């Protein structure tokens, strides 16, 4: 399937939000304390809300009369455009909030830049999402510092989470023709240009959390190109089960 760059770009944003929202919702009923369970569920709902707006917009751009539900529940894994980072399993609470931090710090930069997009719909979605994302950054950064600079046990666990997740953050900033076309058209920001601002947010928090940031390697995941890890298929099986089994079901 080939998408226009505009549609491709919106789907990347939509799928990042949708898949991370789905992952976070897995914590419902399992979080360490009730207060944090609600916090994670709130964040999941924010993300799914963002993805609904973005998928609806993507459906209009596609012009094939597909709505948000059809795009969310009836695409297969190679048609998803989220970065691999958001589809990885949650791991423990530390890894979950660390990923939230790494992703939301990135999303915050994206939304800020998109507020001036020539795509008015996208600009409006960005304006709404920015407020939500600011809270996600605050919530997750707070936990990263607490766990990193906490006990020996919590430090060890969140350091190993950082070692696991860090290589996947490189994908956020890999150069890409879609990005360049979108930036040239004034529709959006090239993600690769956001790396310095992202690092300015991320590194001080990781430092305060006394965590060692791994060096960059040549590894590049390619989820946003539709080449996903084994984990996305399992996630979609669960997320899409109802619509696949009872097509068109509504409630």
């Amino acid at each position, binding site marked *: 399937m080939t998408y226009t760059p505009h549609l491709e770009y919106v789907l990347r944003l939509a799928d990042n939000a949708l898949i991370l929202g789905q992952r976070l919702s897995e914590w419902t009923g399992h979080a360490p*304390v*009730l*207060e*944090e369970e*609600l*916090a994670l569920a*709130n964040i999941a709902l924010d993300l799914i809300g963002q993805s609904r707006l973005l998928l609806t917009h993507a459906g209009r751009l596609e012009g094939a009369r597909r709505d948000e539900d059809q795009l969310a529940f009836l695409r297969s894994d190679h048609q998803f455009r989220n970065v691999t980072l958001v589809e990885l399993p949650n791991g423990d609470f530390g890894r979950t909030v660390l990923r939230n931090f790494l992703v939301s710090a990135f999303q915050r930069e994206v939304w800020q830049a998109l507020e001036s997009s020539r795509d008015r719909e996208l600009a409006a979605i960005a304006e709404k999402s920015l407020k939500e994302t600011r809270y996600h950054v*605050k*919530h997750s950064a*707070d936990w990263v510092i*607490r766990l990193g600079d906490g*006990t020996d*046990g919590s430090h060890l666990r969140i350091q190993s989470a950082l070692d696991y997740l860090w290589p996947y953050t490189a994908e956020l900033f890999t150069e890409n023709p879609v990005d360049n076309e979108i930036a040239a058209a004034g529709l959006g920001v090239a993600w690769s240009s956001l790396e310095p601002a992202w690092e300015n947010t991320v590194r001080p928090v990781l430092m305060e959390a006394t965590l060692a940031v791994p060096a960059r390697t040549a590894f590049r995941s390619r989820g946003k190109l539709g080449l996903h890890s084994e984990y996305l298929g399992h996630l979609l099986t669960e997320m899409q089960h109802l619509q696949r089994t009872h097509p068109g079901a509504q409630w």
Partner: protein
Amino acid sequence: MEKKEWPLWEVFIRSRNGLDHKHCGSVHAPDSALALQCARDVYTRRQEGVSIWVVRADHIHASDPDAKPEMFDPADDKIYRHPTFYKLPDEVDHM
């Protein structure tokens, strides 16, 4: 490893500017910053508030329920303390 319960915080929410903070419940949290975050996530999901206070529950000192007779009953027969005895001019609204 020692497992300690997080302390309890009482949560007060101001629903609109100009109104008072009202007690609405409690959360467990290790410190005030997280207590505020928890309170935000637990109690303001449905646009309930514009401002939150949290207070450590053990910092609140309550009156003794057994002392009700001497604390509150003496006010029962002093109805003249209610403002209904004063005639208000018509121009004064909302008293």
